[in-house]
């Protein structure tokens, strides 16, 4: 194949992938509302996802709040508006930085995990084994995982945001004797419904994307151990890209509704 042909063929593959991913999402919506509901497996997945990412999200959130406050402090201090720090930091973290950074962390942790797990189940014929024993593997494995990420990622993001604000409060407390109570009073004064609501809505879409892409890549994994590595790897790359796309769309749409 010559170079001039290769580029269009990549583009073609890209659009085929998007088509297949949409089809996969369509199948999810078709099967999510039909019986039987795998509640036990859903709970197990929620627990796994939360348990596996809690510490990571906590540490990331804490450092994020800490660093963000330390970095913006000098500029604001120069302007003499140090008192803006709580409101500025909280609005940036809750509206944008927190959700995106933590969703990216979750993409690395959860999406790749699901991609590798389902991928190895596909390669070792465990998914086939489920199907021949009369259980719909899409429902049992994929639907539960996508639902679990859609529910858990927003919770992880709220948790991460809270820890980030706590990190920021500690910096303020050390640098300028602002008490934690005063700091959080400022924060809650600054945050409005239009800051919190759109940001929370979009986190559900982040969660959905994380579960969807991870499952898609794993469930359709190619044979061989190379396939598993590739499934987990491309899951992270695609999810990260999708998170930015969703973020862009969300900001665009909410701008129309809430004039933020």
């Amino acid at each position, binding site marked *: 194949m010559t170079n001039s042909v290769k580029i269009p063929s990549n583009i073609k593959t890209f659009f085929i992938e998007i088509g297949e991913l949409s089809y996969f999402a369509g199948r999810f919506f078709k099967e999510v509302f039909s019986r039987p509901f795998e509640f036990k497996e859903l709970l197990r997945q929620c627990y796994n996802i939360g348990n596996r990412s809690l510490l990571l999200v906590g540490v990331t959130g804490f450092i994020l709040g800490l660093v963000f406050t330390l970095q913006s402090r000098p500029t604001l201090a120069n302007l003499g508006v140090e008192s803006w720090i709580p409101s500025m930091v909280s609005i940036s973290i809750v509206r944008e930085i927190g959700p995106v950074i933590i969703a990216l962390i979750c993409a690395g942790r959860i999406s790749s995990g699901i991609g590798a797990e389902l991928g190895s189940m596909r390669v070792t014929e465990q998914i*086939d084994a489920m199907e021949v024993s*009369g259980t719909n593997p899409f429902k049992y494995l994929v639907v539960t995982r996508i639902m679990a990420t859609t529910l858990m990622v927003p919770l992880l993001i709220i948790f991460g945001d809270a820890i980030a604000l706590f990190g920021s409060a500690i910096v303020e407390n050390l640098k300028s004797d602002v008490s934690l109570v005063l700091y959080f009073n400022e924060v809650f004064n600054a945050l409005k419904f239009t800051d919190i609501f759109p940001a929370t809505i979009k986190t559900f879409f982040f969660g959905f994307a994380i579960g969807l892409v991870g499952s898609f890549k794993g469930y359709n994994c190619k044979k061989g151990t190379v396939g598993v590595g590739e499934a987990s790897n491309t899951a992270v790359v695609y999810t990260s890209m999708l998170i930015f796309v969703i973020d862009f769309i969300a900001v665009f749409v909410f701008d129309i509704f809430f004039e933020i």
Partner: protein
Amino acid sequence: MKDNNHIEPILKIKDLKKSFGDNHVLNGFNLELFDGENLVVMGKSGSGKSVMIKCIVGLIQPDSGSVEIMGKDIMKLDHTELDFLRTEIGFLFQGSALYDSMTVRENLEFPLRIHKDKLKRKDELVLDALENVGLTHAIDLMPSELSGGMKRRIALARAIILHPKIIIYDEPTTGLDPITAKEIIELMREIQLKHGSSSLIITHDVDCARVISNRMILLIDGINYVEGTFKELLALKEKKVRAFFK
């Protein structure tokens, strides 16, 4: 027991064709499995044996041809009917395919999920199946804690837990040492005697074929190239057939 023209086969494959792109894997494969019979299908690796048995249980859609199980054409069944028909078939996968996030007990309980009445007796059924393969002590272990031979036996226990009429074995002895392989073959015979099931055994292990087969089919070039007993095939002079018995 042996093939008998007056008795309907419980599994019948007619003119099965399947290609993946330009790779023509099956080109009109035929097979009949009779009640109580041990039928061995031999073929080189990559000759489409796994594809063939996956067509039987509806994991792969063939391009053309038909598969009848106990008189029912599986292509004409809806999802629920197919699921229930599948529970009449025990399937032992090539690499055992145990669910590695579940314990041995949960692995064995899994096929019972769609039978509400059997789910009530699950403890009894699980123990019974484990006793059949002599591994009751492994009930609470994870698959990662089992040796290759134990995995194969647990997978076999999982395949027979619903007392299927037909058991399909995909290379049951591949990847095992000769002694463990012999144990597995012995176990397959015991189970067959106890439950009176019919077996379709895919292998390229000549020893396995000699010990267990009532009848054999050689899968060559995507078709049922020759059929006969082990002795009959052994006596053939043709080069393609001789290659199997070296």
